[in-house]
């Protein structure tokens, strides 16, 4: 590589190790599947492992070619060998600075730094990994030259490097999660079900189970159980197996949650939220309150039974994927009584509305009619599979379910415009309250389908930055006049406010 010029720095050599493990991680699940599914006489699958080589080469090349420099006006990042990409990130555009360190990083004295700008789904720049002096230098450059949230984010990252993690400003802590809380989150979120498919897949291939249990203590037990059940599987045995599976799933879910949210802490100071959690990699995020585009409070049936709730937020330019910590799982769990306080912290303009404007009085009849049609269609679709008696009983079973859903949905659906914020509540069994500051509204629309026109209704649609389109904020079943009134008012009010990210 030719020298790119003065002031350019490279990544820490340990990057190679971490990148190798990244590559390995991507290949781990496919490799496991190949190993489980391959027969001894079909060894060709092993050759798929050759795909691993280009991935590793790409990672090595990234490390070798990666250079960055801190100029006065912008941060320059370049990499690539055939297509050389050089990116200039003006300090003023940096929205968010994240610092990630897991125990291995700590041991080697390195860290990952991620920078985001408002544009794009991906991190604008990721430095994986830098030595601690390089991290300090980079963060200081951002702190001194960037403005607003990014500067404060960098400053707070620098603070955590100096202080012992436990000694950090206790007054700012808004919420933390005890072990008991984590267990409850594990139970309520039942993530263990995700593992069910894999579990069933493995079980269905008994030879695999056999292979796995070859030398384990469980082997005689399983043998005996299988031998006895092959004659007559008693009801008790099936019940036992089912309950073991369920308990195992919940245990898995709890373990996953504890691992992921260990040491969960949310701090607020100076219009800045600091979020951190994680047993292995401590995931941290610094979120300026002013950048929050949308806030959602959610309650499933279980949440309501236990008096709990869950909060998520959306910011511009960040999707809630695994890497983007602190948005989708902003508040994984809190008491219902804490919601008002947490909303006040994360969206100061959003006072909880005292009442919601209901949808059209005819909404219930319309939803009921739709439910009946849906039950009939559901039954009819099942006809080729289950015959007349089956599809008839399916229809009969679906009708009450759909009717209850329609009733609850139309009763709960509503919207409220508080001082500076639009609130929408919706849901039948899983309830959600969504807040969007009027200042963050991008586009307002009303949609009228032929059915809406027949019932003299309309659907209000509000678009904000950062919302995934599958999750667009819509309020159906509004009276036509009401929808138009809100459409015009929100249009005027949002036009009156200059957009600030």
């Amino acid at each position, binding site marked *: 590589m030719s020298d790119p010029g003065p002031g350019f720095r490279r990544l820490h050599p340990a990057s190679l190790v971490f990148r190798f493990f990244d590559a390995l991680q991507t290949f781990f699940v496919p490799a496991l599947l190949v190993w489980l599914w391959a027969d001894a006489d079909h060894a060709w699958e092993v050759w798929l492992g050759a795909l691993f080589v280009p991935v590793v080469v790409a990672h090595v090349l990234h490390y070798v070619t990666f250079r960055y420099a801190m100029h006065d006006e912008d941060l320059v990042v370049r990499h690539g060998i055939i297509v050389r990409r050089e990116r200039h990130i003006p300090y003023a555009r940096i929205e968010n600075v994240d610092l990630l360190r897991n125990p291995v990083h700590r041991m080697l004295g390195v860290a990952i730094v991620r920078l985001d700008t*408002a544009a794009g789904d991906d991190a604008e720049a990721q430095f994986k990994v830098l030595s601690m002096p390089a991290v300090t230098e980079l963060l200081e450059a951002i702190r001194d030259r960037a403005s607003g949230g990014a500067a404060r984010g960098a400053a707070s990252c620098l603070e955590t490097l100096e202080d012992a993690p436990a000694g950090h400003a206790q007054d700012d802590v808004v919420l933390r999660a005890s072990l008991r809380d984590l267990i409850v989150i594990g139970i309520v979120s039942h993530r263990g079900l995700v593992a069910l498919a894999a579990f069933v897949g493995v079980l269905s291939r008994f030879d695999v189970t056999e292979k796995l249990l070859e030398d384990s203590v469980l082997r005689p037990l399983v043998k005996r159980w299988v031998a006895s059940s092959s004659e007559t599987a008693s009801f008790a045995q099936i019940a036992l197996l089912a309950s073991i599976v369920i308990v195992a799933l919940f245990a898995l879910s709890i373990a996953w949650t504890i691992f992921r949210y260990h040491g969960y802490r949310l701090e607020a100071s100076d219009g800045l939220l600091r979020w951190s959690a994680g047993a292995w990699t401590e995931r941290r995020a610094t979120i300026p309150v002013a950048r929050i585009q949308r806030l959602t409070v959610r309650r499933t049936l279980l949440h309501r039974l236990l008096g709990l709730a869950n909060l998520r937020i959306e910011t*511009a330019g960040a999707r809630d994927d695994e890497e983007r910590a602190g948005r989708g799982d902003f508040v994984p769990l809190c008491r219902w009584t804490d919601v008002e306080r947490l909303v006040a912290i994360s969206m100061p303009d959003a006072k909880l509305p005292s009442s919601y404007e209901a949808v059209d009085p005819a909404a219930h009849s319309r939803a009921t009619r739709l439910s009946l049609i849906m039950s009939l269609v559901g039954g009819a679709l099942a006809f080729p599979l289950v015959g007349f008696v089956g599809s008839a009983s399916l229809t009969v079973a679906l009708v009450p379910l759909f009717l209850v859903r329609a009733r609850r949905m139309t009763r709960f659906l509503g919207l409220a415009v508080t001082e*500076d914020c639009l609130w929408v509540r919706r849901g039948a069994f899983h309830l959600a309250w969504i807040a969007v500051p009027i*200042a963050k*509204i*991008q*586009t*307002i*629309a*009303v*949609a*009228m*389908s*032929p059915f809406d*026109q*027949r019932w*003299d209704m309309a659907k209000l*649609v509000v*678009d*904000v*930055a*950062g*919302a*995934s*389109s599958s999750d*667009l904020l819509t309020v159906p079943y509004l009276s*036509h*006049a009401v929808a*138009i009134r809100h*459409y*015009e*008012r929100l*249009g*005027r*009010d*949002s*036009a*009156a*406010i*200059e*957009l600030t990210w």
Partner: protein
Amino acid sequence: MTDRSDQESTTPAEATWSPLDPAWIPCERVARTIDAIVWIGLLAFLLFGGPELFGWHYLGLEPWLRVLWIVFGCLILTRAWLWPPVAYRHIRWRQTEVGIEIRRGVFWRRWITVPRSRVQHTDVSEGPMLRRYGLARITVYTAGTEFAEIALAGIEQGQAFALRDALIGRPTTIAPESGRTE
């Protein structure tokens, strides 16, 4: 069926509605006819060309199905001719002090408002078809997701440029309605 979108009772006549340029109708007719011809050509190949040249045989070649396909082809062609004037009557746009508002849709109707302060940038483009008829397409980009770009195709070129200038050139805030401050 009530015909709501044709009344303008809900807002005071602060700004007048503009239709698209009338030249959009022939332009759209030609564009849709070209589309229809491509589809019919494909259909004809599947129904007659393929079986004749390569000896294909499949269920779709049953005589009654062939009739159905031919009817379908005729329908596309008729629609290409009849639909544009209907659609034309149901597209209107106006510039208000808020920003730009577009109402469109014959059966599924949508009114959409983009406040001027939310316009990130605008594009005026002309495809070969639009250019032949002296028309242009203006695309308004916002920072949103579902409505990140809102296009209005079929207005006269000069008007498109004027609209573009109006959307990005002026001061972006208007007087608040209800004593709201920033």
